[in-house]
C-alpha cells in the first residue's frame, strides 16, 4: 500500500538536500530555479501540474534507488 506524502516530508525521507533534489529535478527537465523549486517543496509556491509531476518523479526515482515504493502522488494519472 502506498502511503502518499507531501513534498517536504518526502524530501526528508529521501534524505536529499535542496541542492541534491534540484539537480535531480533539473536532470528530468524541470524548468524552475533552485529557489522556485524550494518554494514548491515547502508549499509557499504552487507549481504547474507539469512541474509538480517532474518534481514528484525526481523524489520517486530517489525512492526507487532506495528500493522503496513511490510515495509522492502525481497530479496527472
Amino acid at each position, binding site marked *: 500500500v502506498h502511503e502518499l506524502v507531501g513534498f517536504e516530508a518526502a524530501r526528508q525521507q529521501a534524505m536529499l538536500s535542496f541542492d541534491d533534489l534540484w539537480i535531480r529535478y533539473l536532470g528530468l527537465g524541470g524548468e524552475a530555479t533552485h529557489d522556485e523549486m524550494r518554494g514548491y517543496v515547502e508549499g509557499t509556491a504552487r507549481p504547474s501540474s507539469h512541474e509538480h509531476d517532474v518534481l514528484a518523479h525526481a523524489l520517486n526515482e530517489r525512492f*526507487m534507488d532506495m528500493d522503496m515504493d513511490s510515495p509522492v502522488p502525481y497530479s496527472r494519472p
Partner: protein
Amino acid sequence: MTTPDETDNPEEISTILARMGGVLLTEDTLDAVLDLISSLARSTIQGADAVSVTLVRDGKIITAAYTDDSVMQLDSVQYENHSGPCVSALDEGVVIDSKKLAEETRWPEFRVVARDNGIAAVRSSPLKVHDRAIGALNLYSRSSRGFDESHEIVELFGNQASIILANAEAYTSSELLNEQLREALRSREMIGQAKGILMEREGCSADEAFDVLRRASQNSNKKLRDIAKEVVSSAAREPR
C-alpha cells in the same frame, strides 16, 4: 622585528603564501603545498626545528606534511593516545603553546617521545575552515625560548595554511557538483530528445510526452532517462 641576517623576510614570504592562497587544489597538490609551507615555516620561524601539518581526513587524524622524520614519531604518539598539543589545538580550536615541556604535566606519552627527540618547546595552531578546526600547524623546538618572538609570522603561516585548506575543500565539493550537473544536463538532453520524438510520433504536447515517459518509468521501475534513451535509440534505428 626583522634582523639583517635573516635570509627570508616576512613580507616576501607573505607574498608567496598569498599567491598560493588563490589556487584551487586537489588532494595531491594540497599535500605538496603543505610540504612547501612546512619547509618555509621551518626556515623562517626562529626556533622552529621541525614542522608538521596535522589534518583530519576521512574522519582520521593524519600528518599531511612534515619536515623531518622525527616529526612523525612526535605526531603519531599524540594521535595514538589522543593526547598532545596538536590534538588539543584541533579539539579546542585554540593555539596550544608549551615553552617548557620538561615542566609540563599534560600529555605524559607525548612528553616521553619529545624528550627522547630533544624537543623542549611546542606550539600547535589550529587551522580553521568556516570556524571549524580541521587541522593544526605544529612547530617543535629544541630551544625552550619557544616562538613568542616570531608570533606574527607564526600566525601568518597558520592563516595561509587555513586558506589553502579551505580552497582544497571548495575544490572537492565544486568538482563533485560539476560532475552531478554534467550528469543532470546529459539526462535532460536525452529526455528532451525523447520528448521531441514522442511529440512527432503521437502528435502530443511536450508535457504529455513527459507523462508518457514518466508512466513508463513508473510501470517498469526504470529511470525515466533510461526509458528516454530507449525511445531515442529505437527512433535512430527506424528508417526514415
